[in-house]
């Protein structure tokens, strides 16, 4: 299709504001008489608070309020950033209080102080006297499910949040009839988002008595609901404002600091209170990525045709459910529209433990599942002495495939081309030859891994998006969306969609980047890679409405029928002749000032999107492994995507760079560590938690196979989370190719790699080293 703006590298709308430091983030706003809040955290992994005495803290000059559980409503609420469900059976688990009298992890919030300044607040924390009855605790899912394990939440026997799974076909029959059966265990570690901007909010009570919360969030409308629920307020009494945000990656698709911040302000008589977490607090008391243990059992024919798979997953969700079982469930559905199994049995268990709370993180469980599955496929290929790429190719589903459970239909399927492209770009065959017969302590190897993903959450959750367009006197338009720009570039993409539809240059589309729940159209926010796909549909719909209204006014002016005209580069043209009949500006002025017919051109609409589109892709990598030190270097990497039409290639590439680096961190370096006896976090800071720096990040190459998906705006599909799924298993597979050693757990941290190499007898080679 011939587009003027879609498919072009439109510069990010916020590029200049961000690089010049003019973009305003939550912490850049100040209110008069602002106070600060700080939280007292439990030193125990599991303990009942038997007594709190805040009198000394309250007496400290500069302390305005001290909050304890007794001062707050006893309303249990759910924090996950999902649309509300009218069906009580589909709601998130309500297991949280703003402050708790039973600590369930080291760092659980017990009390809070509001003070004139930070130092006073910190001093006051030390003056709060708390007595605990320490309880036994559990750190692993296995321990949590064991007989007699201490219960975190009274109403969850066995500490199991849910063990709901899905299946189709007859897996047992497949195992009985299979030529070969493979089993494997895989494990991923607990990692964190590490967004640059901390978790931060401030709240106050405005002159109308409403609670105003300004927050660094991905989901302002959901924050409004949950703050109201947690505090027992009527929803309309809460207003949430979301300014620019410095990254979220799913951690801010959850309500973490806002209810407490609002409670702090209420306790301080409505004065503005800021609560901004330190980096250490972000590690301890926000959300993490679920560590998962997966057992895979797969039935195949002798020729390598996949027949049935039984996947058992233990998902460690920490002390509170947050997104809970949704993550294991959502992730378990993603490989079905990729590989063609006759039978699948997916058995996940989401389990409470006395660890920090796991929640949404880019990929929503899918990186864990694909780490296991794509490692497993390489293990199978090696045993069958098959080419791992051929094994995958042989088992791909076909275009038109309908998922038996979700009923989602595959309308575009670019994975075969992605695989072919990756193989060519990395020079797979040539490199394989060069790598043969390597000796010495540096060994190179090649690996690849595939993935599939969805665009939004249909049919599991509501996919509603709102858009409002107002045409200005000069023919420019102002666009408001409820979907949030969180750095991914969605505002720019919406401007492109609007500009393309209305025949405008992008600089005549003014996007209101701040969301304010009083003003902003309703939308559940930024997550599930839904923005371009779901909100894009609403934006396109609004732009088409505006276009129709423009052509009606033009028809009045010119006498031509609307259908005979088009808008091109700010002009109304008679389509068949290409003749300009009037300008868009003329139409806009008529709409405002025509003495008889004036009616400003606007559209205020929403889309309830009840369709989904599968995105695909693969990562191809070459690694170099230092056998002596256990260090793994990625020497070449290609991350290739079928995300339908790419609306903005530069922004798409940006998503790839960020997503790949996140996956490489999880593959090689990152893990949250806890003392196995006390449950205390060992590395809740950026020195000891090894987030890769730019020097640790290899050159990341992005490539796109553009398909056209009829479901998406201009043929587009999701991309935001996709790049973070396949790099980790590809690296793991490449290390196996280089060394013959199969790793079953990430990260491939140097010491762990060294130990495995020694176990495998590789280190005897040391004396062969040449200098």
């Amino acid at each position, binding site marked *: 299709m011939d587009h003027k703006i879609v498919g072009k590298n439109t510069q990010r709308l916020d590029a200049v504001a961000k690089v010049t430091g003019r973009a305003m983030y939550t912490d850049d706003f100040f209110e008069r008489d602002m106070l600060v809040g700080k939280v007292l955290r439990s030193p125990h992994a599991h303990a009942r608070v038997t007594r709190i005495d805040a009198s000394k803290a309250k007496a400290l000059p500069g302390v305005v309020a001290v909050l304890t559980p007794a001062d707050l409503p006893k309303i249990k609420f759910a924090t996950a950033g999902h649309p509300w469900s009218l069906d009580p059976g589909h709601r998130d688990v309500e297991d949280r209080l703003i402050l708790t009298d039973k600590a369930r992890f080291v760092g659980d919030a017990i009390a809070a102080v509001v003070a004139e*300044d*930070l*130092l006073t607040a*910190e001093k006051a924390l030390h003056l709060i006297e708390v007595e605990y009855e320490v309880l036994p605790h559990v750190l692993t899912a296995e321990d949590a499910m064991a007989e007699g394990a201490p219960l975190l939440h009274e109403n969850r026997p066995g500490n199991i949040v849910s063990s709901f799974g899905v299946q189709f076909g007859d897996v047992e029959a497949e195992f009985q009839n299979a030529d070969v059966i493979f089993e494997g265990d895989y494990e991923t570690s607990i990692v964190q988002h590490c967004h640059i901007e901390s978790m931060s909010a401030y709240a106050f009570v405005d002159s109308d008595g409403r609670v105003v919360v300004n927050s660094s969030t991905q989901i302002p409308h959901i924050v409004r609901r949950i703050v109201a629920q947690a505090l027992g307020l009527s929803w309309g009494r809460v207003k949430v404002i979301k300014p620019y945000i410095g990254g979220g990656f799913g951690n801010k698709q959850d309500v973490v600091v806002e209810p407490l911040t609002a409670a702090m302000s209420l306790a301080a008589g409505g004065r503005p209170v800021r609560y901004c977490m330190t980096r250490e607090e972000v590690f301890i008391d926000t959300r993490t990525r679920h560590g998962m243990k997966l057992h895979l059992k797969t039935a195949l024919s002798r020729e390598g045709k996949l027949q049935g798979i039984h996947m058992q997953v233990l998902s460690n969700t920490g002390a509170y459910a947050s997104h809970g079982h949704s993550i294991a469930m959502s992730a378990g559905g993603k490989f079905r529209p990729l590989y063609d199994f006759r039978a699948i049995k997916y058995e996940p268990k989401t389990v409470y433990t006395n660890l920090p709370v796991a929640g949404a993180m880019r990929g929503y469980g899918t990186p864990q599942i694909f780490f296991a599955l794509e490692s497993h496929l390489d293990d199978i290929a090696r045993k069958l002495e098959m080419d791992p790429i051929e094994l995958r190719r042989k088992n791909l589903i076909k275009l038109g495939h309908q998922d038996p459970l979700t009923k989602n239909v595959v309308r575009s399927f670019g994975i075969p081309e992605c695989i072919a492209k990756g193989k060519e770009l990395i020079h797979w065959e040539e490199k394989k030859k060069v790598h043969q017969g390597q000796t010495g302590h540096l060994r190179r190897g090649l690996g690849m891994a595939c993935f599939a993903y969805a665009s939004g959450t249909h049919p599991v959750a509501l996919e509603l998006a709102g858009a409002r367009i107002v045409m200005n006197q000069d023919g420019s338009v102002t666009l408001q969306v409820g979907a949030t720009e969180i750095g991914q570039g969605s505002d720019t993409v919406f401007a492109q969609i609007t500009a393309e539809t209305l025949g405008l240059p992008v600089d005549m589309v003014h996007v209101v980047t701040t969301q304010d729940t009083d003003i902003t159209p309703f939308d559940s926010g930024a997550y599930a890679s839904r923005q371009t796909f779901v909100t894009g549909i609403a934006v396109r719909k609004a732009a088409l409405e505006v276009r129709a209204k423009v052509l009606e006014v033009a028809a009045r002016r010119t006498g031509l029928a609307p259908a005979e005209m088009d808008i091109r580069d700010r002009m109304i043209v008679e389509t068949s002749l290409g003749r300009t009949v009037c300008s868009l500006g003329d139409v806009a002025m008529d709409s405002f000032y025509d003495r008889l017919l004036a009616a400003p051109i606007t559209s205020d609409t929403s889309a309830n999107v009840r369709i989904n589109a599968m995105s695909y892709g693969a990562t191809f990598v070459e690694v170099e492994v230092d056998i*002596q*030190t256990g260090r793994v270097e990625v020497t070449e990497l290609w991350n290739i995507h079928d995300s339908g039409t790419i609306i903005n290639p530069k922004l798409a590439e940006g998503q790839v760079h960020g997503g790949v680096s996140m996956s490489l961190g999880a593959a090689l*370096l990152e893990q949250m*560590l806890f003392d196995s006896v006390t449950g205390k976090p*060992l*590395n809740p800071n*950026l*020195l*000891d938690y*090894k987030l*890769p*720096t*730019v*020097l*640790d990040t290899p050159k990341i190459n992005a490539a796109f196979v553009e398909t056209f998906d009829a479901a998406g705006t201009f043929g587009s599909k999701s991309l935001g989370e996709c790049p973070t799924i396949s790099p980790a298993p590809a690296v793991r597979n490449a290390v196996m190719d280089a060394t013959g050693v199969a790793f079953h757990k990430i990260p491939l*941290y*140097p*010491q762990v790699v*060294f*130990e495995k190499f020694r176990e495998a007898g590789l280190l005897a080679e*040391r*004396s062969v*080293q*040449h*200098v």
Partner: protein
Amino acid sequence: MFDICELCEPETLAEAKAIYAANPELKVIAGGTDVLIRMQHGSLAGAGLLSLRNIPHLDEIEMLADGTISVGAMAPFTRIFEHELIRKHVPVLGEASVSMGGPQVRNIATIGGNLCNGAVSADSASTLFALDALLKLETAEGERIIPMRDFYAGPGKVNLLPGELLVAILIPREGYEGMGGHYIKFAPRKAMDIATLGVAAVCKIRENRFVELRIGLGVAAPVPVRCFEAEDYAKGREVTWECVQEIARLALKPAKARSSWRASKDYREHLIEVLTQRAVAEAVKRGGGCCAD
């Protein structure tokens, strides 16, 4: 926000020494990249700070009349690795300096602070050990000059007297002249990281024989150490791959590696051997020798 009760900012060294003598409880602050981190973590609450930042000339790098290279305690690492004298005469110290943190940290973190902080992982320490560096320490009463190994008293502890300041690091001519050197910092990340192990090797080679070899290890024991057995073994020997391997084995002698959640004793010891081989081999190459078998 830091919990600080006072900040003294003397303009001369004499003034600083006088203030410090009068109030040895003050906490000296140079670049602050260790001090402020500690404060943020809640220690040193209510401390008074004595800043050395306004004292001129304390950051100078110069060659003294006898060929000693003097590095002012307040010299930040960026200045050290960019400095002409360091590049020309002690490139191994430049190598260690540039392995520190990231650009922002190197711009403000000082070499004096790195040593006085007493961390076994201090990237400049193992190299200065290998270079046989001396430390010039001053109080209001007078000055003393001590070798590096007399400075370290234990993990995080150094032998500074009450009211005493580190003024300069002295690298004598014999420490660096005609020496090839190499520093290997092994850490999970390539920047902004703490060394799992640091190995500095410097050597003088003549006719492919070790005239002298000095090895400093960081994070191999509670304090940085020299590998005297390995060094003695090397003296006079022909450079061969077997010889380098034996040196690396002997380098384990002074090591007292311990297991922590960061790395096991076993892994650290393995790294000492492997990385000493690599550091010595590279130092030999840079010193004009060759150890290919």
